[in-house]
């Protein structure tokens, strides 16, 4: 596919008195695009507009040539992986993925077959008949990813898919996104941390306070952000061992044990940090159960960019 996949033209979105999107014009093409911004920047609002969950207050939204709010069949060409952790009570991974596949227009038997294949491929074969509410964060994200792509959409939209996910699951999810993009799927993925996406994405859109702040290739945007120290919070049953392993990483300038499960690390080279962390974890036999990049990172960078320091 060539040309625009997503077009927002002077899009405005208000929630009562709150202005979530402010006259935003955006053109997203094929490939993987990262939608990056701090909390309340407007990322979820853009995703809501693109997936047809809400109409704009003003302006125009076109996705794959149609209006996702009014065009019901069009939504069958879009896959959506929400940030929300909530699913129907008691529903297993297999039931969730199968049922949502059926809702996307797949025949029930075919949906069941595809769900089993997809969950097995992504490493949830043993857990697919357990309730999703018993899944770890990483397992839930994988199940949500499966439901989003079961109907083989042309556009996949993911809202913070790596938030809180353990390092190995991150690698798997990013690899899966690259594979899907290689097969021609366009992908829009949001995050409040550019560095966790940068190995997978082609282009970056920076959003701040409902406005487009910058857009470009990963390299262009990274140059703007890398001057700032970046902190990462990790959860592990062995925080001391983890802290000492982290200090071996190039670019790590500080490590702090917060409590008996939590370690904070500060790095000046986030790209390398996220790239080598899985190897360190597996090589040293450590367990990292969750990984977050606090939103304050990006807030600091955005304050810097808004002031014009980024050029």
């Amino acid at each position, binding site marked *: 596919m060539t040309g625009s996949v997503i077009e927002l033209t002077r899009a405005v979105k208000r929630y009562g008195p709150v202005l979530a999107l402010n006259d935003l014009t955006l053109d997203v093409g094929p490939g993987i695009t990262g939608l990056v911004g701090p909390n309340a920047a407007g990322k979820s609002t853009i995703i809501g507009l693109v*997936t047809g969950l809400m109409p704009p207050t003003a302006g125009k939204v076109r996705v794959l040539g149609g209006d996702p709010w009014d065009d*019901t069949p069009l*939504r069958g060409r879009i896959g959506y992986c*929400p940030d929300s952790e909530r699913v129907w009570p008691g529903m297993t991974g297999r039931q969730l993925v199968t049922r949502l596949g059926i809702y996307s*227009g797949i025949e029930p038997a075919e949906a069941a077959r595809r769900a089993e294949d997809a969950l097995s491929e992504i490493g949830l074969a043993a857990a697919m008949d357990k309730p999703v509410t018993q899944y770890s964060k990483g397992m839930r994200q994988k199940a949500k990813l499966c439901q989003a792509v079961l109907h083989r959409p042309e556009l996949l939209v993911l809202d913070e898919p790596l938030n809180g996910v353990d390092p190995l699951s991150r690698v798997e999810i990013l690899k899966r996104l690259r594979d899907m993009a290689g097969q021609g799927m366009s992908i829009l993925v949001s995050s409040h941390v550019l560095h966790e996406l940068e190995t997978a994405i082609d282009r970056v859109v920076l959003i701040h306070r409902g406005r487009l702040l910058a857009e470009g290739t990963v390299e262009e945007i990274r140059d703007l952000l890398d001057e700032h120290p970046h902190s990462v919070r990790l959860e592990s049953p062995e925080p001391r061992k983890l802290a000492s392993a982290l200090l071996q990483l190039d670019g790590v300038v500080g490590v702090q044990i917060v409590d008996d499960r939590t370690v904070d690390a500060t790095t000046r080279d986030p790209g390398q940090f996220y790239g080598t962390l899985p190897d360190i974890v597996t090589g040293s036999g450590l367990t990292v159960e969750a990984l977050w990049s606090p939103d304050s990172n990006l807030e600091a960078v955005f304050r810097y960019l808004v002031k014009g320091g980024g050029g």
Partner: protein
Amino acid sequence: MPATAPLMARLYLDTVVRTKRTLIVGLVLVLVALLFAVAGILAQGPKERLGLYYLFLFGGPAGIVLQFCALFFGAAAAADEVENGTAVYLLSRPLSRPLTFLGRLAAAWGVLAVLMSVLNLLVGLFTGGPTHLHRILLAEIPILVGCGVYVALFSLLALLVRNALAVGAVVSLLWDFPLSSVPIDLHLLTLRYPLLCLVRGVAMDYEDPDYQALWSSGMYRVFEQSPWTSFVVLLLAFAAMTVVATRLSARRPVNLRQTQ
């Protein structure tokens, strides 16, 4: 495109059955049936037992139970997916939004209709007995109509206000139930009044002197109406509420910040 309404009806049934509210509703219905069973056993003779059935239909129990069950199931049809944060999965699919709502509304009506029909049948048999089976079965017609009307009312309410259960309880307790029994024209502004007319018209033998004696000092203008008038009024009310609720539901956006 998937067959939206049946899929959404099935999802509603699958999820609503697992909720505590359904257990509470079920327990209330069992309790009501047991009370009337005991009263039927203790009653002196067939006339008194039939009077108990009239009491069930007209005196409040059927109406109150129906309204409260409709409140639970109707509000769930309109608001559960949004409140549970699962609406994002449904509304981002190629599912028709009006049919999503109508499928859930139909399922809510179906659950309520089955529960209330069984309750009516049990209470009718425990009190009036098999000799009045034709009346008991005819009374199912207004009960089914009432289930539809009240489910539509409370689902509409759930789309209009945040705390639909509390507001619905107020509507039932302070408006619909008391005003349907007052002998002034305000009862025309309730749904229960035409429903009582319908029950009276299709299921009761109002030439029966025993029946007249039992109910000669109560809600009296109910009996002035033709059942067809009541039926048409209820049908129009149902259609109007369903149309408005469907339109509201179809145009209601999902705020992603509230689902996280």
